[in-house]
């Protein structure tokens, strides 16, 4: 597993070298004017004046000693930058994943139990709509309706900093700011979970053991919950694993639309700014998350279905 992460780190490093232009050019470009002396000073400061193998050596040395390096653009340690954005990211992600998984599975469950009837048609059509609508459009429409027209929720950001809330008022304020971004981000996955749950449940329903359970006289509700849903959860867990794996960078659009100070935006901006230390740091953290989540998914498989053996 460590080898996987180090391998990813090495590939990332050389992949990012392919991007044309460097951080000094970006800074000089933003400044609207520059002198060669200024750019040389920046390159020296960033370590970009060193040959590639020296830069690579430094980077690998850092990775192996759990040091993510320094972002010269931000003038901060990469680990501090990531930790600073982590709470906002985790908050948004847990809210949206929770919303998507719980409501999605519930909707899929109901749809499957009513397969072919009106309820199913409505749930499936709404899910298809959420699935097909671009995330940024949903986000903007929610802003227009709930913030601008109805004036119920804030347009963006994480807190109303100008109000100076503390304690519970602050928590309530953050919760208000979280509603629109987590719904926006959650709707797409909600649709995915609903469709997955419905399809998996319908498939399980045709299994012999379900017929046996029904023949035994088990109440229909119990059959659906214990015999069908539990066995239909495997693909949901796989999807959940994938979604959590994308936690550290999957929300660029939503974070941008709602000015949410999360990691996705940090990574996205780092790419355009050629802040390679920062970008590599975020990518390494993401790969660690993906590896760990994959392991957890495998373990959950064995819990849900004891026939699957741990490796």
């Amino acid at each position, binding site marked *: 597993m460590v080898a996987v992460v180090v391998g990813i780190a090495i590939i990332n490093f050389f992949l990012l070298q392919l991007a*044309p232009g460097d951080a000094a050019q970006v800074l000089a470009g*933003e400044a*609207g004017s*520059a*002198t060669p002396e200024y750019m040389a000073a920046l390159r020296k*400061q960033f370590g970009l004046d060193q040959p590639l193998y020296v830069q690579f050596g430094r980077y690998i040395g850092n990775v192996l000693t759990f040091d993510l390096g320094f972002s010269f*653009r931000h003038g901060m340690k990469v680990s501090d930058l990531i930790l600073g954005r982590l709470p906002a990211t985790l908050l948004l992600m847990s809210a949206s994943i929770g919303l998507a998984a719980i409501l999605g599975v519930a909707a899929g469950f109901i749809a499957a139990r009513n397969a072919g009837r009106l309820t199913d048609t409505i749930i499936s059509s709404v899910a298809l709509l959420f699935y097909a609508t671009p995330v940024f459009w949903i986000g903007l429409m929610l802003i227009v309706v709930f913030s*601008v027209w109805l004036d119920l929720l804030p347009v963006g950001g994480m807190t109303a900093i100008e109000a100076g809330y503390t304690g519970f008022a602050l928590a309530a304020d953050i919760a208000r700011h979280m509603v629109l971004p987590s719904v926006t981000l959650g709707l797409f996955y909600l649709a995915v979970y609903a469709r997955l749950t419905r399809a998996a449940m319908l498939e399980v329903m045709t299994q012999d053991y379900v017929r046996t359970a029904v023949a035994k006289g088990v109440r229909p509700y119990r059959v659906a919950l214990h015999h069908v849903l539990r066995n239909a959860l495997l693909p949901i867990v796989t999807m959940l694993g994938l979604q959590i794996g994308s936690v550290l960078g999957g929300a660029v659009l939503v974070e941008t639309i709602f000015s949410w100070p999360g990691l996705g935006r940090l990574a996205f901006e780092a790419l355009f700014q050629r802040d390679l230390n920062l970008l590599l740091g975020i990518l390494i953290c993401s790969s660690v998350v993906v590896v760990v989540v994959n392991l957890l998914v495998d373990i959950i498989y064995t819990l849900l279905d004891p026939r699957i053996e741990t490796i």
Partner: protein
Amino acid sequence: MFTKPSLLTAAMVVASGLMSEAIAETPRRGGTLVAIVQPEPVTITAGTNVAAPTQFVSGNIFDGLVTYGIDLQPKPALAESWDVAPDGKTITFRLRKGVTWHDGKPFTSADVKWTLENIWKTIHPRNKAVFLEVSQVDTPDEHTVVLRLNRPSLPILSTINASGAQILPKHLYEGTDFLTSPWNNKPIGTGPFVFKEWSKGNHIILERNPNYWDKERPYLDRIIFKVIPDAAARSAALEKGDAHYAAFSPVPLKDAERLAALPNLKIETRGYEWLSPLLYFDLNVDNAYLKDVRVRRAIAHAIDRNAIAKRVWYGFGKPAVSPIPSTVKQFHTADVPKYEFDPKRAEALLDEAGFKRGANGVRFTISHDFLPYGDDYRRTGEYLKQALKRVGIEVNIRAQDGAAFIKRIYADRDFDISSSWNGAFPDPQIGITRMYWSGWVGKATPWTNGSGYRNPEIDKLIEQTAVSSDPAQRVKLFHQFQKTAQTDLPTIPLIELRFFSVHSSNLRDLTVYGDQIYASLKNAWFAEPPK
């Protein structure tokens, strides 16, 4: 009365309305102003970083030696008065007494001397050239600074505002490496607002400086700069009143008209005079087709700059006739070779140059790299494609991000036509001549001579304007410079951009200076307490 006024007229009505209000009303103290800063600045000290968002914030924390009025004439700030000796080789500044840094230490002539010698003259992107001729800085007492120059450098007086030549506290920076100093992100200035907090990706908070030398000011208690990356979300925040002020054309041009019609918002196009931005195409003179001046002139004739201003830029621009924008009144001249929109003339010139239409109607194919700073530049590129197709030139539009664009145009020079904009500043030597001076070719430095144009005659003109001490002589030299530039046409000036700000109509006296977007908001006040 019943026809819809154009946006610019509306803005001018607003502007004149504001001025009369300013006379009639007494400013009200208090309130928190929420401004939008986008993109998030890299640093909020403009010592070496002169990016727009940096200066937008930093101008509130620091003072300059002077500020510039809407007419771009310098007005006293940290310098109460100044003299330029008749030979132009001595400039004396008399500094304001009793000014302190935000940490309580006194501001003295030593701070000016240190910053000039260690920042402006060494690594400052714009000022290095302007202060190059300063041989010695004398500080006969704590409140007098005397610059001694080898040769005159009149542009100095056009760049000494809070963001153009920011004075840094010597006692915090002396003996340290400026670029890595922690003070860059928690600056100590002398300005009307004190730095309080910067939450990266979120907001920057400044608070009123109670010890500010201009006793009445500032009127606002706090300024919060919020980072809002999405343009549509910026529109919504302004419309809803969650934010009161945003600059640098913060919303899509097509949204501006809608916002201007709302009673709670105003659109302002003043405050950018110091910048005087000019949009232009650079034509790579090393290209097999573009090296022929007749082809370059043909392209200029094929482009309707009126259409670019009116349709592509929604009226937020004025057709340019020369590389020095008309807003830089002192040096601009319209007496230059002009290239009226005339596709027939363009075709005749192309035929004359030997590039006849082929069997498919195409003369030749070139590429266009537009400035990757938003949709407006992409649309300008699409206009170019259509305009040139009409005269038989096929254009392939290429898109890339900022870093790749700069490398391609200024380092690799692997392009045919690029678009970009430069601020002219009150003195064209600061922002315009670098587009034409051959010394910049191949220096891999952004926003310099992108076309690769080399002409000893124009080089000489540029060098003379830099060191002439006679203002009248400099005007003559700059007029000649514009004629030569428009004759050879390595760069086609397109429009003088009109950036705009959006602000709450509850805010008064927000735009007082010609460099307002880079200056402080110490004059701004809320007519009614903000919600």
